[in-house]
């Protein structure tokens, strides 16, 4: 293994060899300890030469990333090839190996998130997560619509909703995944292969679970890549004919509509600054 390091424009740059493996765990640990001594807040791994990343080396880099974060520092990757990027995605490591196009982008991303509110940067991870979750788990391709502000007298049809309370240093709020009954039953069939005619207590937790996975994915992106500090949360389910969600916050709810082969549904996101 042959890694070279340099400091450039406030970035600790580590050029990685063609094969990354953990053949000698002691030597790897000593090397990482050396990297951690750098005072640079941003560490970047250059993967230009890398064509093989063995899973045995995951632990070293996961712990390296953890040690950096514990000290308010960030880790990014440049020049990641498509194959290894796919490997990281399948193995759930995209939040450890965050890709950037340049050292400048790494420095920008490493700047802590200031302020809060429902803006595009906050909404986009939820849209991406909803598409990923339903496409993978229920084989449904979604078409997101344009986000819009929910008006007080809006009557958005729904019979079941998964609800998660949002909580972090900067704000509180909620995220709600809302389905019409017919759409929910078709999505449930896509998830489990089971066909049902009505929403029963046995199957209604699917609304909570879908939202749980969407929230988990979005939270990982928002916390690891955009500086948010969203807490874990357990979802709940609301059901009822002509169900309506009232949000007691001063801020308006943002509605993100989706269309799908199972029918339309939507996300409602409300955020209130602490």
């Amino acid at each position, binding site marked *: 293994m042959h890694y070279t390091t340099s400091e450039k424009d406030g970035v600790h740059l580590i050029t990685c060899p063609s094969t990354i493996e953990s053949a000698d765990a002691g030597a790897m640990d000593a090397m990482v300890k050396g990297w951690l001594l750098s005072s640079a807040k941003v560490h970047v791994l250059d993967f230009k030469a890398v064509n093989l990343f063995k*899973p045995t080396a995951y*632990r070293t880099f*996961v*712990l390296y*990333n*953890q040690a950096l*974060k514990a000290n308010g520092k960030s880790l990014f990757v440049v020049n990641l090839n498509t194959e290894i990027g796919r490997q990281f995605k*399948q193995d*759930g*490591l*995209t*939040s*450890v190996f965050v890709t950037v196009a340049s050292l400048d982008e790494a420095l920008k991303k490493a700047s802590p998130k200031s302020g809060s509110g429902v803006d595009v940067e906050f909404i986009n991870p939820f849209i991406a997560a909803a598409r*990923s*979750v339903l496409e*993978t*788990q229920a084989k449904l391709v979604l078409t997101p619509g344009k986000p819009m502000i929910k008006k007080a007298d809006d009557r958005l049809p729904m019979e079941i909703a998964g609800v998660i309370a949002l909580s972090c240093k900067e704000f509180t709020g909620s995220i709600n995944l809302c389905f019409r009954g017919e759409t929910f039953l078709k999505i*449930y069939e896509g*998830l*489990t*292969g*089971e066909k049902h005619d009505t929403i029963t207590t*046995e*199957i209604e*937790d*699917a609304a*909570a*679970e879908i939202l*749980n*996975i969407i*929230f*988990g*994915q979005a*939270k*990982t992106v928002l*916390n*690891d890549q955009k500086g948010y500090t969203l807490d*874990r949360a*357990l979802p709940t389910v609301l059901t009822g004919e002509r169900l309506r969600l009232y949000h007691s916050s001063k801020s308006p709810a943002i509605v993100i509509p989706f269309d799908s082969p199972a029918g339309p549904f939507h996300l409602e996101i409300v955020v209130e600054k602490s």
Partner: protein
Amino acid sequence: MFDPTTKVLVVDDMMTMRKIVVKACKDIGFSDIIEAADGQKAWEAIQAATSPIGLVISDWNMPNCTGLDLLKRVRADGRYKALPFVLLTAESEGHEVAEAVKSGVDNYIVKPFTPELLQRKLEETHKKTTTR
């Protein structure tokens, strides 16, 4: 790969997710599958099993004993510390992955997952645990 007769324990507080995992396990070839709705019930099932459980696939975020707490109990008990354990999680933040690794998880799967990904992860887990 695990022998198809391996007794599998699927742990998740959401019945829907248990159905998804059980179906995927059956599609892989497993036939002896038991379920638990939280970490505490899973721990009781592990101790009460008349034939040994050979693989645990557990959700992480559950009330009344999380998957991580279940993992720590299993690894702390000499009778079960070598039990192959896979965490199924909706979250993959770096520090959480690191915590799972430190606690002795054999593999983890980030939801959502395809049956093909589950199979690959279980093959990796089997390879890892048979050589320890």
